């Protein structure tokens, strides 16, 4: 049992480290390191521009989308090399956040289902960050129940005409392309009438309206489609097979391993180490210590769970659904940690923004945390995944499974 790299891993790490050391935008390192969940802002620069520049630099040197094949703009690296890269990239990895959906979900879906000519056209500029992609799945009536979506696609000659609405679309306001899940047949059970496309977000009839979140930030959007035309060659997979295509996307979403999950614990520990309470240093208070210890073992438990997964990758194994626990544990933990950090501040905890203690770091965390428990699968969906796929318990009973979609009730009452 050890934490050592194999000789090949060590060589890869050294090369990556040297390149990052020579090329990363060091002037932003401190700001990126200090940004916590809910707040990655650069004071004197546009983060989108900084992120695109860093991504382009990586792509030009062959460090973009490590796990993608070379012909599509990647490096053809093994999963373990991707993890090592993430470890070495450290705080600069924060800059990749706006590419996560494109690189992690849209790209792999395109690779699995798009025509070869489209892959060669669209994937390299996605890898290099020149073009940003979003994923148009969720709807007001279809969140966890993705297959309940209502956006229609109707065939019109060689085109499809799209009408409907999407919601919670991360980054739609700066995206160039998107993958879109639609309903092409409402007369069959819900999973059977879906079809997937990709489209240009500048197409006539696409309207993006940013959603102001509880935190005040606007990372998500509503996207409206009014008679938007998509040529049939931009269809991904067969007509009616959209559910299977979307499963490829969603599986990619949840298989990100090795990226450090934010728990808020290092921030809280640091804070308690210097904070003075009425009766002395916070870190010497029994109640504070007990809380800290409980979160400490969750944070270390997650860290070493991820080390175990990385070790499995290193052996060439594929990590399974057990890796769902990271987001599940970290999501509610960060919310509790932020709540507690504010509790320690007493009445002053209510003040937010730059006027607040630590420039409002914990307040920002508190307001962003609820989103972590919902995005990419709610806590409840994550528990279902563990119960069903890891423990082998029965699936939830689905009363709409065999009912034609247009016969499924749409309102709970009346």
């Amino acid at each position, binding site marked *: *049992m*050890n*934490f*050592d*790299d194999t000789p090949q*891993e060590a060589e890869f790490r050294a090369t990556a480290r040297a390149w990052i050391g020579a090329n990363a935008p060091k002037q932003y390192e401190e700001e990126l390191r200090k940004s916590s969940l809910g707040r990655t802002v650069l004071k004197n620069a546009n983060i989108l521009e900084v992120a695109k520049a860093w991504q382009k630099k990586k792509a030009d040197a062959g460090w973009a989308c490590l796990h993608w094949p070379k012909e599509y703009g990647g490096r053809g690296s093994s999963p*373990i090399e991707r993890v090592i890269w993430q470890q070495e990239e450290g705080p600069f990895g924060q800059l990749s956040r706006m590419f996560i959906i494109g690189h992690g979900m849209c790209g792999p879906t395109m690779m699995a289902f798009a025509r070869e000519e489209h892959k060669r056209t669209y994937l390299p500029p996605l890898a290099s960050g020149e073009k940003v992609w979003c994923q148009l799945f969720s709807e007001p009536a279809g969140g966890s129940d993705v297959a309940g979506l209502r956006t229609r696609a109707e065939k019109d000659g060689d085109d499809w005409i799209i009408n409907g609405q999407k919601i919670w679309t991360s980054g739609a306001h700066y995206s160039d392309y998107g993958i879109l899940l639609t309903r092409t047949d409402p007369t069959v059970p819900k999973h059977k009438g879906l079809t997937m496309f990709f489209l240009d977000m500048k197409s006539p009839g696409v309207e993006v309206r940013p959603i102001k979140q509880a935190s005040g930030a606007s990372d998500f959007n509503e996207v409206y489609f009014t008679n938007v035309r998509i040529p049939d060659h931009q269809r991904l997979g067969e007509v009616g097979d959209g559910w299977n295509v979307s499963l490829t996307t969603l599986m990619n979403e949840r298989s990100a391993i090795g990226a450090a999950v934010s728990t808020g614990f290092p921030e809280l*520990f640091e804070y308690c*180490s210097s904070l003075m309470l009425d009766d002395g240093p916070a*870190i010497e208070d*029994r109640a504070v*210590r*007990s809380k*800290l*210890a*409980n979160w*400490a*073992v*969750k944070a*270390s*438990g*997650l*860290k*070493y*769970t991820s*080390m*175990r997964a*990385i*070790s*499995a990758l*290193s*052996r060439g194994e594929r990590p399974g659904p*057990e890796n769902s*626990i990271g987001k*599940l*544990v970290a999501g509610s933990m960060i919310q509790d940690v932020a709540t507690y950090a504010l509790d320690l501040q007493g009445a002053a905890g209510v003040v937010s923004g730059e006027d607040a203690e630590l420039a409002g770091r914990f307040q920002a965390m508190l307001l962003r945390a609820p989103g972590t428990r919902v995005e990419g699968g709610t806590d*409840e969906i*994550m*528990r*279902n995944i*563990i*119960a*069903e796929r*890891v*423990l*082998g*318990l*029965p*699936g*939830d*009973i689905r009363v709409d499974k065999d009912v034609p979609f247009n016969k499924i009730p749409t309102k709970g009452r009346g």
Partner: protein
Amino acid sequence: MNFDFSDDQKQLRDQARKFLAEKCSPKAVRVVLDGKAPYDKELWKGLAEMGFLGVAIPEEFGGAGAGHLELCVIAEEMGRANAPVPFSSTVYLAAEALLIAGSDAQKKKWLPAIASGEAIGTLALFEGKGNPAPKNVKLTAANGVLNGVKKPVADGGIADFAVVAARTGSSGRENDISLFLVDLKAGGVEVNNLTNLDPTRGQAELTFKDCKAEPLGAAGEGWSILTQVLDRAAVLCAFEQVGGSDRALEMGRDYALDRIAFGRQIGSFQAVKHMLADMYVSATLARSNSYYGAWALSTNAAELPEAAAAARISATQAFQHCAKNNIQVHGGMGFTWEFDCHMYYRRANAMALGLGSLSYWEDQLIDRMRKKNAA
């Protein structure tokens, strides 16, 4: 990176699991639970024959000389089987104290006897309420003679020898404490068995009256040795707790699949599924923290004190959580004597106290993290 047990170590785990499945069925555990025997002598003998008792004891002292990672995988299986034998007191506490501080003669006398199953050992530390702390040690040692009372002492009723913490100074500090080795069969010690939460592992009160004892380790070094012993035992116990957590989770899962209510398997109800998913989460976090403890223990890393405390807390919480909710999944059946759930519930809660309580280890963890940050 290879943060996992080796194939050989995993094979050893399978071997131990198979052996215990055969020799340590719930029915066998119940013989001790029902008070018909103080521990399972046959199983103890079998464990010795398999080489499990001396797996981490060097070959020159009659052991297999494999190491602590091997002991960790066996510990996990002992916990999974809820084995009614004095494994933790003899192997984690007494043997480790001897390995750390014993003289050559002491090691030669006791370690081979432990490995062969002839001697049961224990650690006599506690004196009633309170957690491990120098000020809580009141038993005195003067001129090699002990006077005082220790309780509870794990497996004290069946042990052949004990490592005893005694006061040898009056400054009130750590260097007042020294350790002694006492042959419990040689007279001078009165043994009273105590009823306790987990009858599958006994507890006793030992009264020392002008009892002859030989020093273990240097005078005044007792507390420092004890701390090392407790840290090592914390990691090893964590593996027992991880094994127990997994077994309790498995029992709950199996019952949720078998039991039908309201016309469905109860495991199809989200409330039950989510309870089991949460048990899996805590068992997984505990396993990962324990692996880190195992790495620190086997490499004698500077991180051991912190890793041991984290493993201790995480595994204690997980076992208590899984054992408690296993009963809940079983409903009314779960708290009958007839079903096995309570054996794990008892063991989980008894183990939570054995090396000092959860709140004690929480305190230790924060101290150790602060020290590391300051360093």
